[in-house]
């Protein structure tokens, strides 16, 4: 049983808190194994006493024959003194780990990233650049990054189990913390505060790059979208503007400056659609655009009400936004 549990805990498919990929989660994973050890000790002690008590209580013995120590003393020693010592140790370790989480070890943050929660997606901004993206947070691996998180509507919570525990994203306030990913990789996280109908499909990917790669990505992401020259793409852009898509979505370099939906300037550079609801591909993009509610019922984006050439042009235009 225990072996099966341990195997499950270390299976690699899950976004597991116990396979940390950065110091913030690493501190906590170490803490967990240590807490588990203490909990096991206390459980074994308690259940041993209970077992012996039950065994003794079945013996034929005069009722006045007791455990050889007054019941009060026993309850105080086993129930108060013993746990108090364990808890004192746990308190000291807790304070130590809290101090380490509060201040980034060693170097100061090299970058600042802002994440804003929306029902039910994540807006990601890189202050000092024009880069704005959604549902994917790119960071340089091996560097400490400062995160500033807040919300545009209700309370959400930032959580990437392999990298960092939760920090709530409050409307009207900003919470600041640091993160570091040791190695390049893709780490999945989900909103951890119930935020309404589609709380279940509000996920994000934290993508850690080699530092140079990250700089290149940031520069590319900061560029506006190219002006379309192909007539089909031009028609697609017109369809985008004529059908109110631009009320919600921004495409930098065009007149689309909406803010309540994800920035689409480089949508095809993203791996997923609908906050990690489906993979991003041309087919999925078309299907999502036609009716996002098929994949994520109740999502704020309305289905489009036209088809045929205009729709194809629109998709072609979106696909060109790499």
């Amino acid at each position, binding site marked *: 049983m225990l072996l099966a*549990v341990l195997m*499950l805990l270390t*299976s690699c498919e*899950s*976004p*597991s*808190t*116990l396979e940390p990929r950065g110091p913030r989660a690493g501190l*906590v994973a170490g*803490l*967990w194994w240590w*807490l588990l050890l203490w909990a096991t000790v206390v459980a074994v002690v308690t*259940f041993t006493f*209970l077992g012996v*008590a*039950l065994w003794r*209580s*079945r013996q034929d*013995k005069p*009722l006045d024959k007791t*455990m050889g120590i007054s019941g*009060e003393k*026993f*309850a105080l020693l*086993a*129930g108060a003194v013993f*746990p*108090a010592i364990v808890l004192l140790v*746990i*308190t000291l370790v*807790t304070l130590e780990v*809290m*101090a380490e*989480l*509060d201040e980034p070890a060693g170097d100061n943050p090299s970058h600042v990233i802002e994440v804003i929660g929306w*029902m039910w997606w994540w807006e990601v901004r890189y202050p000092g650049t024009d880069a704005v993206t959604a549902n994917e947070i790119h960071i340089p691996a091996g560097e400490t990054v400062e995160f500033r998180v807040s919300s545009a*509507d*209700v309370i959400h*919570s930032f*959580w990437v*189990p392999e990298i960092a*525990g*939760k*920090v*709530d994203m*409050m*409307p*009207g*306030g900003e*919470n600041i913390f640091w993160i570091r990913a040791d190695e390049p990789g893709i780490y999945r996280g*989900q909103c*951890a*505060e*119930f*935020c*309404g*109908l589609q*709380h*279940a499909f509000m996920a994000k990917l934290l993508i850690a790059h080699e530092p140079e790669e990250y700089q290149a990505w940031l520069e590319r992401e900061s560029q506006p979208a190219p002006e379309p020259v192909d007539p089909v793409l031009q028609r697609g852009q017109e369809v985008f503007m004529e059908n109110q898509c631009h009320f919600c979505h921004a495409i930098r370099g065009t007149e689309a400056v909406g803010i309540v939906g994800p920035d689409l300037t480089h949508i095809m550079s993203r791996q997923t659609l609908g906050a990690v609801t489906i993979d991003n591909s041309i087919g999925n993009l078309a299907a999502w655009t036609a009716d996002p509610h098929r994949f994520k*019922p109740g999502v704020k984006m309305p289905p489009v009400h036209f088809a045929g050439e205009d729709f194809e042009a629109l998709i072609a235009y979106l696909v060109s936004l790499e």
Partner: protein
Amino acid sequence: LATLGERLDRLYSNPSGFYGWLVAVNHRSVGTRIIVTAFIFFLIGGIEAILLRTQLIQANLDVLSPQAYNEFFTLHGTTMMFLFAVPMVEGFAAYLVPLMLGARDMPYPRLNAFGYWCFLFGGIFLYASFLAGAVPDGGWFAYPPLTGPVHTPGLNMDFWLLGITFVEISAIVAAIEIIVAVIKFRARGMSANRIPLFVWGELVTALMIIVAFPALLAASVFLELDRKIGTHFYNPLTGGEPLLWQHLFWIFGHPEVYIIFLPAAGIVSAIIPTFSQRPIVGYNLIVMATVATGFLSFGVWAHHMYATGIPFLSLAFFAAASFMITIPTGVQIFAWIGTIWNGKSVFKTPFLFVLGFLVIFVLGGLTGVMVAVVPFDLQVHDSYFVVAHFHYVLIGGMVFPMFAGFYYWFPKMTGKLLSENLGKLNFWTMFIGFNITFFPMHILGLLGMPRRVYTYQTGLGWETLNLLATIGAYILAISILMFIVNVFRSLKAGEPAGANPWNGGTLEWAADSPPKNYNFLINPTVGSRYPLWQDDDIYLGENVDARANSLVVEPHHAHRATQGTSALYAEPDTIVRLPVPSPLPLLLAFGLVVLFASILVNLIVPALLGIVWTLVIGGIWLWPSEGDFVE
């Protein structure tokens, strides 16, 4: 000439027929109603849980729509906390406290009945949201701004807020009732150090309700004002503060956990001595632990808010307080183990449920210490780990003792024993089903599965454990069905119990099973904690019938009355007149229904009528009548 017993029985009986049912105020009628109604809500909350678990049995199912899932988890939490757990512990109190104290009724029987009607109407009010198609969907914790006027414009949260306000009223009046009963209605000689531990648990719980529930009442009134008349208590865009809700909610919400647990611990403290056939070990320690838990529980609320951005320095205090509260609980657990150690165990069903409680609750307590560790909590907060933790402490800490209590006191309430064989099967299926359901959830949380998600994607390693948890939930459901079968079988053809089937030591076992309408022919006198074991002469050596008959002519035997005693040493000092059956409690609660329903749909005039109705009925209720005064 009728004997005194017959005459008293008539004096204390409810009027016959449906009208009699509506006007009943006797504590055992009201207590039974609260218990049965709360159990029905337990079944409803359980069916909701089964639906939730069925939706999660596999990835990407749509047994429930996202909206339905959110509604059902909101109702599951709300029902289990507000409509099951709190009323259930108050139902146990309403039925048992007067019997354990040797009194004839609760001090304010009409208020008791009023509390029941508020509870019933509050529950119906909440579930009436199905008729309006606006079922609450913001979680039992109802965090704004999600539950505010912008993000939940429909009536959903209004049903929730007004419904639980009813239940809050009911909880508060029951608490007043319990406090006064314990202070004034104890048997002669039942000084503070002889009060049964179950009664101590209920007393501390009642005091906690008086302090904790007003915080929730204030929070919900603020939110309803935000929703109905556009105030901005919780609106961050206009300078309101969503965190205010969380503080107020958890200042209520964490004591709430102990409000449920302490009476359950009291049940355990009542059952373990009986099935060990010896007095409890460490009575004074248990009383002190109960009181200490009550105090400390008000200093730990922010451990529900570790992730909100409160500075770590402040959180450190809440972490320390949360560690501290385990110590009084530890003392209780080892006092119970010491009692078993020194006693002779009788392995009957109530005792098995208590042992199940000990195992599950200790495990839940250990994960409780873990989640009090701030950095660890930041990982598992709002994940399935927490779901596992609090079901271990709530089902382990309250539902197992409750079933122990059912098996223990059912014979007292009905005069019939429940079947032992079915009872043991009931226990083992519940114990195994519980662990199969909730143990895997610890691991799910560590593997990153958040709470309150209506489905999950494949390939995240969550499928097997969810399947297992759902299978466990079905086993639990079957176990509960066994209990229901056991109850109906026993009511029909159960073995007669006699007054004291378990050889219990406290006063409730001196009354008949079921007790006569007047509980005790004359108010008993005690000289120890376990008067029936010490052969205390609870009727002072007199021939009860003769003595009682000699009292018939006294005026206070012409109407309902019980003996009042002094607070500390329980010396008789008054005769308290008790009211007769009355329609006033129902009528007063009805006025509140009119008021709340009118607020719900924004009707001013009916709302005013509801207020006037409530005030008029309240006035009639309070109008002094002859003989109302303490003699």
